[in-house]
Structures are given as structure tokens and as C-alpha cells.
């Protein structure tokens, strides 16, 4: 009996080693692809049509949708930032989703809005709208006050009320770079295949200095190590994860913090799904499903130079909630579109990308977490040799250090948003440290989310926004982020 158990444990250990090996090979491929694509993109930027897009009367209007719920500390900053966007034709639609704090009043007072009569066409079904607010002095700002229905419901409400053919969802705790909208729109205008969604890069806002106009005055790194780890994570995730998948035309995630969508296609697909804790990812999965079902050519792309800065959680408790929520959202999104899994009708999305997400993103934390425990215990009781332990540590930790360093190197090669020497050294250093504790804690949170989902918990946990950079205090209620 003991020998069977030992063999099973040993077998599992070898499986874990093999699994890590496969994951690392996939990451290496993605990294290589990302390097090639980013180099190419950097050269393409030099002859891109950015200035022509900016000056053209043919550039389509875009609605910037900002759903807000109890965001009184940060809402003005994000609205002002959106209003200062350098884009020829845009409207900003703020959707107050039943805030119980002073969010709505603050916006009304700041922009001297007054209530207006307006027909609300419920192309997508949403919770009732309580009122519209507008001021002729800021003609491209519309504020909608509605009953609480969640972020997806608020976005659907914004889709119903906006008049532009495209919309860009932006979180209330985020600041858009001035040319971000223009840059994220460029592929839509240059591609001869219809682009139904396009996403940009999200970076950590904490540590940045904003001026009174909410423009970025100085880019600096925060002191909090937790935030520094997240900065390294974001750089790695956006610069090689998404760029890599995009190059295969197999992008499954665009961050809801900053993504552009073709409104009619989203409406045809049924809008954002209320009840999903990661409505942005679910929307992208459903867009793939919708377009492939309809047999229409399409592209969902990621652009690596438009940047949106967003607040990241600065405490372990909030970060844990965020990560559990993201993982839960991933599982929900796949589960709700399970028809696509392994289905040749959905091409590479159904046959490769979704199975990859199930095997390596959803189950990854489970295998990784159990693997850590099992390998260490097996070694402790003498079941495993030191060779295997070394191999495991190499694959699980040293390879992570390599990937983090590669992420920082990519950033250095490309956009260098962190300008000082000390920024570079700190990021490189935290790229190493990240793999000794932080990554394992993250794995544990995602493992928790997996268990919670398995046990039937499908609701989300809120993450507070503190409104750093010029705003004070914490908020009374809970708010959304990413």
C-alpha cells in the first residue's frame, strides 16, 4: 500500500516537473514572439498614420465610458483626464451605478451639470436610469445616474446612451495618456479586416505625480514593495503575454480598464454579461464566439504603446481580493462559453487558446500550489532526490526570474516609461525578488479562487480605491477596479 502511495506521489512530482517544463516552453515561445512583434511595432510606429488619424475628418467618433460606483475620491481625476484626451471626436459618458456616497454630487458640482430630459433606448436591458446630467459648456460630457446593477450593467447603459460607433471602457480610478485613444484606434483604421476590439497597455498609477490638469508630470516608482511587484508583473503581462497572443491572432483578454470596442458588434453579441465578475474577458471570449459563429472576418488586437495608468491595490488584503476576482472571472468566462472548448468551429480559439487557458491558467495555480507542497514534502521524507528538487526549483523559480528580467528588458528596449537609473535598478531587483514569495502568494490566492468556484461561490469581492496622487483619504464604500 505504502509503495503504491509512494509511486503515486512520485508520479505526481514528475508530472509537476513536466508541467512546469511545458509551461516554460510556452512562455519562451510567447516571449520570442513578443520580442519579434515589438521590434516590428517599434519600427512601424515611425511610419504609422497617427498624425493623419488625428487630423482626418474621417476618424470615427469614440465614446469614453466611465462606469463609477462610490468613487468620489477619484472620479473627477478620471473624467478630467478623459476630457483632455487628444482625439478629434469623442464624448465622455460617466455612468453612476447607484453610488451611495457623494460621487454624483461631486461630478454635478464640479462640471455645473443640470438635469436634462433624454430618451433612454434600452437596446441592451439594464437597470432603470434615474436621470441624465449635462452642461452645454462641456458639450462632450454626459453623466447618467442609474440604479445599481454592477459594472457590466453600467457599461451596457453607457452603450445604450452613447452616440458614437465605438466606445472605450475606462475605469474610474484610471488616467489615460493624452494620445492613448488615438493610438488604440489606429489599428481599426489601418486594418482592412474589421477590428471589433482593441486594447492598450495598463500600468500602475501609484507613484506618479499628476499636475492640476491631471496630466502626468513625473513618472516615479512607489515605495511600497507590493506595488513594485505589481509594476513588474504588469510590464511582463502586457509586454509579452498579450503581445505574444496578439501575434497569433488569439487574444482572449483585453483589460476592461482600457479597451476599445465596436459598439454595434458588442450590442449584437448581447452586451456585457451582468453577473460575470470579469465582464471584460467574458466580452472578448463572446466576441470571438459571436464573430466566428457568424462566419465574419474580424480582428481583436492589442496595441503595445497606448497607455492607461490605473491604481493598484497597496495592501495584501485588497490585492488578494483582486487576484481571486480575476481568477474567478477567468473561470466564469470560460464556463459561460464552454461550447467553444475544443470545438473546431471556433478555430484556433476553440482548439488551442481556450484549452491553453484551462490547462495552464485555470489549473496552473492548483498544480503549482499542490506541486510546491508535494515536492517539498516528498523531498523532506526522502521520496525525491536532490536532483529533482534542483530541477523543480530551476523550473519553478529561476525560470520566473529569467522571465521577469526579460520583461524589464523588453520595457527597456521599447517604451522606457520609467526614466531614471534608479527605476531600472529597482525594477530589475524586484523582478528577481518577485519570484521568492510574491509569486507563490499569488498562486495561493488563485488556488483559493479555484476552490471557492468549485465550492459554488460565484460572487465577487470588492477592492477599495484610495485616490492617491493628489486626493486624500479612503472611500466610504467599496468600488470597482480593473
Amino acid at each position, binding site marked *: 500500500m505504502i509503495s503504491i502511495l509512494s509511486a503515486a506521489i512520485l508520479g505526481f512530482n514528475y508530472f509537476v516537473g513536466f508541467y512546469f517544463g511545458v509551461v516554460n516552453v510556452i512562455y519562451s515561445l510567447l516571449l520570442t514572439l513578443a520580442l519579434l512583434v515589438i521590434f*516590428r511595432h517599434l*519600427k*512601424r510606429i*515611425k*511610419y504609422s*498614420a497617427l*498624425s*493623419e*488619424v488625428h487630423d*482626418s*475628418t*474621417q*476618424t*470615427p467618433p469614440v465614446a469614453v465610458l466611465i462606469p463609477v460606483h462610490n468613487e468620489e475620491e477619484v472620479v473627477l481625476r478620471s473624467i478630467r483626464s478623459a476630457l483632455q484626451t487628444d482625439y478629434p471626436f469623442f464624448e465622455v459618458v460617466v455612468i453612476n451605478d447607484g453610488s451611495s456616497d457623494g460621487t454624483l454630487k461631486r461630478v454635478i458640482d464640479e462640471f455645473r451639470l443640470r*438635469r*436634462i*430630459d*433624454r*430618451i433612454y*433606448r434600452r437596446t441592451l436591458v439594464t437597470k432603470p436610469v434615474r436621470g441624465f446630467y449635462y452642461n452645454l459648456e462641456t458639450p462632450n460630457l454626459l453623466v447618467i445616474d442609474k440604479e445599481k446593477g454592477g459594472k457590466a450593467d453600467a457599461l451596457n447603459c453607457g452603450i445604450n446612451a452613447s452616440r458614437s460607433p465605438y466606445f472605450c471602457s475606462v475605469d474610474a480610478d484610471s488616467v489615460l495618456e493624452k494620445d492613448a485613444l488615438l493610438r488604440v484606434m489606429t489599428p481599426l*483604421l*489601418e*486594418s*482592412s*479586416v474589421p477590428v471589433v476590439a482593441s486594447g492598450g497597455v495598463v500600468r500602475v498609477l501609484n507613484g506618479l505625480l499628476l499636475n492640476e490638469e491631471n496630466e502626468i508630470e513625473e513618472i516615479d516608482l512607489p515605495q511600497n514593495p507590493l506595488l513594485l511587484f505589481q509594476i513588474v508583473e504588469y510590464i511582463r503581462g502586457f509586454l509579452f503575454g498579450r503581445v505574444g497572443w496578439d501575434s497569433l491572432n488569439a487574444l482572449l483578454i483585453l483589460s476592461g480598464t482600457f479597451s476599445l470596442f465596436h459598439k454595434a458588434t458588442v450590442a449584437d453579441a448581447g452586451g456585457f454579461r451582468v453577473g460575470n465578475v470579469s465582464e471584460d474577458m467574458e466580452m472578448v471570449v463572446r466576441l470571438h464566439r459571436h464573430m466566428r459563429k457568424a462566419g465574419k472576418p474580424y480582428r481583436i488586437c492589442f496595441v503595445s504603446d497606448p497607455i492607461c495608468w490605473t491604481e493598484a491595490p497597496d495592501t495584501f488584503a485588497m490585492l488578494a481580493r483582486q487576484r481571486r476576482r480575476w481568477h474567478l472571472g477567468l473561470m466564469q468566462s470560460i464556463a459561460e462559453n464552454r461550447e467553444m472548448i475544443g470545438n473546431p468551429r471556433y478555430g484556433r480559439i476553440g482548439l488551442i487558446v481556450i484549452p491553453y487557458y484551462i490547462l495552464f491558467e485555470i489549473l496552473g495555480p492548483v498544480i503549482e500550489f499542490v506541486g510546491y507542497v508535494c515536492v517539498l514534502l516528498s523531498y523532506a521524507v526522502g521520496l525525491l532526490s536532490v*536532483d529533482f528538487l*534542483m*530541477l523543480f526549483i*530551476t523550473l519553478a523559480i*529561476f*525560470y520566473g*526570474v*529569467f522571465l521577469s*528580467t*526579460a520583461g*524589464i*528588458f523588453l520595457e*527597456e*528596449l521599447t517604451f*522606457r516609461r520609467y526614466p531614471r*537609473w534608479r527605476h*531600472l535598478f529597482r525594477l*530589475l531587483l524586484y523582478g528577481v525578488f518577485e519570484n521568492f514569495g510574491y509569486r507563490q502568494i499569488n498562486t495561493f490566492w488563485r488556488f483559493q479562487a479555484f476552490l471557492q468556484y468549485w465550492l459554488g461561490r460565484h460572487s465577487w469581492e470588492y477592492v477599495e480605491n484610495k485616490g492617491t496622487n493628489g486626493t486624500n483619504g479612503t472611500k466610504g464604500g467599496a468600488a470597482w477596479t480593473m
Partner: protein
Amino acid sequence: MQDKIIIIVILAIIAILVTLTVGLFFASIIRRGLHDRKYRELDRLRSSYRAMVLEALESGRVSSLWFDLSAPPASSAWQAIEDVLLGLMADGKYPSDITALFLALGYPAFHEKRLAERNAQARAQSINKLGKMKSGGSVPLLIPLLDGENREIASVTVRALGNIGGGPALAAIVDRLPRLIGNGVVAGKALETTLLAFGAEAVPALIGRLSSGDLHPHAAAIVLEVLSRLPADERMISPAAERLGHENPEVRSKALKVLGRPDHLSSCPDLPGRIAPLLRDPVWYVRLQAIRSLSMLKSAQSIGDLGKLVSDEKWHVRNEAARALLLLGDCSLDFLIEALTGRDQYAKDSICEEIENTNFHARLIGHLAAHDDSLGDKSLRILEIMYTLGFSIPLEEYRNGLRGAPQSGDKREGQTSGL
């Protein structure tokens, strides 16, 4: 033995990883150092060359720059000078002087040579720069690139030719429209933007292409869209009017857009009559454009048809019809009242919404204080109906205004107090 091999393999993996990691670590640092040095130097050069060039341009001593600005190709100074001149060109400062400077310094020749390179991105960069330099002499070299298989090159070339402008560049693009659009070589929006950059000089060529009859409907729609954005020209009327009966709705809609300009009325007074039948087009966006065009022509001739369209099945059409009626002014009041007292709730909503959107309620409120009883009564009727339909803000504001100024002596003050 086997154990040793395993250990060697593991150690080799670790060594490779560590080497790669350390390599990337130092590569990041070295790259940062090199970049810093390069851009510090470039910034310094740009700043000094900009001051030098501006001073020479302002004092009219351009030829004196030829010697001062000469630099070996691809050096930092070469790049800095190019950046400065392109920056001034983009600002629209001294374009002819700068073009002459580019030529004298050999920039177009340098980039023309690079057009033969195998690397597509290097070629695209040079094509783009030739366009930004407005290098007219490079047009014959650029035109053949439109016929290549590489879409990116074709796309950048179209843009470059648009930047350079001139008849040959325009003719080259227009001649190739069926291929460029039909095969999806260049995105429609990009092509529209480029053609618009040629300005009014593009009109005869575009009309000629439209009349040639070999255009794919999508290409024809793009040409019409561009014509609709260019200054009105009576030569556009006939080819556009001929396409009002085109089988493709996109073409019909764009033809309407071309026609719907007041300047065309003097050469074709019958335009509203030719547009009006399309108010009954089966495709909603054609009806929408027909309303917009008639509205642009400020023609009250089709007011009856417009009145019917406020009950259209599509809200875009309903709203546009309501807006068009409002733009016709007081002569539409009867139609508005008729629609507002009808059964169609959608039509009522659209009218009320547009009255507020277009600020027409201010005009109605103005009538309340005027001495024309008929207009005042109709206006009050409309405001009252709006109030009962939930569009209460105009009347409430009016009442609040009266309360704030009780001595205004408005004769209808008492009539609204019951609301």
C-alpha cells in the same frame, strides 16, 4: 552514470538560465546607457540646429545653411537635421524653403536609394519620410510601389503620395482605386483621408473615375464620400444624381451626401425633388441621409414626407426627421403638434428629445412672449405636451425664469401656472 548525466543536464539548464538572466540584466543596463547618451546628443543637436535653421529662414538666408547643415548620412547630426526640418514642415513653416533645403542636403536622394532595400520596414520608413518631405521628384519612384503585393508598403505609399500632392500622385491613386479597395490593399478610411488631402484639385479626377463605370460599389462609395467632403462643385451633381438609383444602398446614401449641399441649389434648383423619393427608400440609412440632405438644402417642399418619417421604425430616422422639421422653423409647428398629439409614442419621444437637443424650446419660449398669438399658442401647446410626456425641463425653466422676474409682463404667465 545516469545520475551524473541528470545532474549535468540540470546544471546546464541552471547555467543557461543564469547566463541568460544575467545577460538580460546587463543588456538592460547597457542599453539604457547607450540610449541616454544617444538621445542626449540628439537633443543637443536638434536644439542647436533648430535655432540655426529658424534664424536663417527668418532672415531669408537659406542658401547659407547648405554648408552648415551638411552631415554624413545616418550620423546623429544627419538625423537631428532631418528631425528639425520635418518638424518645421509639419508646423507648416517655410514649406518651400524646407523642401529646397532637403533637396540640397540630399535627403530625398538618400531615401530614394533605400526604396530598393529588401527590408520592408526600412522601405516603408523611407517612403513615409519622402511623403513628409513633400518630395515631388520622388513621385515617379513611389508610384510603382502601389502595384506591389506588400499591403503595408502600398498603404504607406498612398499616404506619402497624399502628403506630396499634385496631379501625377492623385492620378496614380485614382487609377488604382479598384485594386486598392477591391482587394483590401488599403483600408477605406485611410484612402478617404489621403484623397481628401489633395483638396479641390481631386474633384475632376474623382468624377472621371466615378464615370468610368468599372468601380466596385465600395470604391464608388468611397469616391462619393470624398466628394461630399470636398468643396461643392457643380460637376459633382450629375454623377451623384445618376447614382441615386444605384442598386447598392451605400452608394445611394453617399450620392445623397454629395447632393445635399446648399451651394448645389443654384445650379440645380430641382435637387430637393430628386432627393425626396429616397425618403421612402427601403434601407434605413439611405432614408436617414435623404433627410439630412433635404435638411441641408433647407427645403420645406418635402415637409409632409418628413412629418411621416417621425414615425419611422428606426429611431435614428425618427430623430433625424424631427430634427429636420425643427430646422425648418415655425412652418413645422403644425406638423409637430399633429405628431405630438398622435398615437405614436416613439415619434413623440423623438420630437421632444430633438426639441431639447437643438435648443428649439428656447425659440418656443420666445414665441410665448411675442405678439403673434398664433405662434404663441402653438408654442405653448407644444411645451405643454412636452411637459405631460415627461420632458418638463423647458417649461419648468421658463416658469422659474418668470418667478425670478415677475415684472416681465409675459401674457402667458397665468396660463402655465396650473402645470
